[in-house]
């Protein structure tokens, strides 16, 4: 949509999001905003709740507390029908790709187009070609997901997420499993989409090179809380030792491993 149609200065606003699974608080009072046209990078240790956070933002999971505003519309309390309407403006790339295994690559990308409109199949076919070219997969329309590699599945997932020209793009580890060149292609694409078309993007990634290359804003999740937020420069300059250990990829530091070494040896030798 054209920029003039925005209702709120923020494409996405998350306020006080809290969610527990059993006794474990996976998300603890998470708040942040994404302005239109920005790329927000979510970082954090594996298993610290980043995918869970995305699931709450797209309305697949309901929080215990807190709100999610998509361009000013609060979505955690919407019914299925209202939610479906808001979701038409989303594109989502799942961590696992979540492709439909019974459909070909081309059919996967065409599905959202054919299901949500009356466009002719030939038009949908052309759109599929445009989207596959964006992710460097021209000519792979006729393969089934089982016949392509993990990194290719990710890229098909990206093409499918872009099929309906979303205003808001969510990517869960878009470059995991991609070689450096393809990573650069996807990074450039994400930046182009935001810069040239005014999309807003929320990207979860563990890839620090890629993160600092594309981010306009970053947040760092640790034990369910946002412990650092800011522009890439601010994050780099943030003295928080946990954050620095993560950015620099050091094995030693304040981030606790699951069990300390002593504890591990003690448990190992227990009868």
């Amino acid at each position: 949509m054209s920029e003039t149609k925005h209702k709120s200065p923020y494409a996405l606003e998350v306020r006080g999001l809290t969610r527990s699974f059993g006794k474990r608080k996976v998300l603890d009072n998470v708040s942040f905003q994404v302005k239109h046209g920005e790329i927000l990078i979510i970082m954090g240790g594996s298993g610290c709740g980043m995918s869970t956070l995305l699931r709450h933002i797209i309305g697949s999971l309901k929080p215990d507390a807190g709100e999610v505003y998509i361009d000013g519309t609060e979505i955690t309390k919407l019914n299925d029908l209202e939610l479906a309407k808001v979701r038409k403006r989303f594109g989502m790339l799942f961590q696992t790709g979540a492709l439909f295994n019974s459909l070909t690559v081309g059919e996967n990308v065409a599905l959202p187009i054919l299901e949500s409109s009356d466009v002719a199949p030939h038009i949908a076919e052309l759109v599929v070609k445009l989207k596959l070219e964006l992710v460097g997969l021209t000519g792979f329309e006729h393969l089934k997901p089982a016949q392509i590699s993990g990194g290719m599945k990710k890229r098909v997932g990206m093409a499918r997420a872009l099929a309906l020209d979303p205003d808001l793009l969510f990517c869960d580890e878009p470059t995991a499993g991609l070689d450096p060149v393809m990573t650069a292609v996807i990074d450039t694409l994400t930046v182009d989409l935001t810069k040239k078309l005014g999309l807003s993007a929320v990207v979860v990634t563990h890839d620090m090179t890629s993160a600092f290359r594309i981010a306009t804003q970053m947040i760092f999740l640790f034990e369910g809380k946002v412990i650092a937020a800011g522009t890439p420069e601010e994050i780099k300059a943030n003295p928080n030792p946990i954050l620095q250990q993560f950015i620099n990829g050091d094995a030693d530091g304040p981030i606790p491993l699951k069990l300390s070494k002593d504890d591990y040896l003690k448990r190992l030798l227990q009868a």
Partner: protein
Amino acid sequence: MLRAYTELSLQAFASIFAHSPLFGQRGWRLSALFDQMVAIGVASMPTVGLANFLLGIVLAIQGAGQFEKLGATDMVANLVAFSVLREIGPLITAVIVIGRSGSAITAELGTMKVAEEIEALNVMGIDPVKYLVVPRLLAMILMMPVLTVLGEGVGLFAGWLISVTALHLNPIFYVSNSIDAVEQKDLFSGLLKALFFGAAVGTVACYYGMQVEGGAEGVGKATTKSVVTCLTTMLAMDALLTTLIYFVL
């Protein structure tokens, strides 16, 4: 659980009616429906035929054993015709369809659920009930009576075949006996049962598939539960319908 099942079923039937061609909607997904009719119906035909054939033989021989004592072996024709149309045909057909297609539906939907495919549909604004459940349920409801009629035909033929060969009954006399023994009502009560079985198996199998949690193990567990529930539901429904038909018609 029962509530979730009822909700899904109501949603599915509402979707079937809301998108039926009668209301000039964009319609059911006809190609998906057709695919499912082939998967559920056409592919089941050999097994359904074989099961009914074997039971037709068993019925005729078992009946002959009893009727011989009364000196009324001719009555085998009546027994086979009556029980195949009213009971054995719909029942054994449903058992086969549950084992073949009911389990397949649960496993397929369950696999899609754990692979996040259903969540992906939701996020794209595509209603999984309309997209996945409706074609399967509708195919089940349409194909169960078709398969039942086919199975009944084969069962009747098997009874006739064994009677004229092994039991040396008169082939023509057997047929006229069969026709005398049954009424239209017998045929319809069998088909009515098949229709209900189709609806029950379709909704139960889809429900168990859509609620799978926890990976491949969850899919396996759900499939087992689905088959058991389909069988017991179908038998309970059979008892209920048989009683109703007996007292009402």
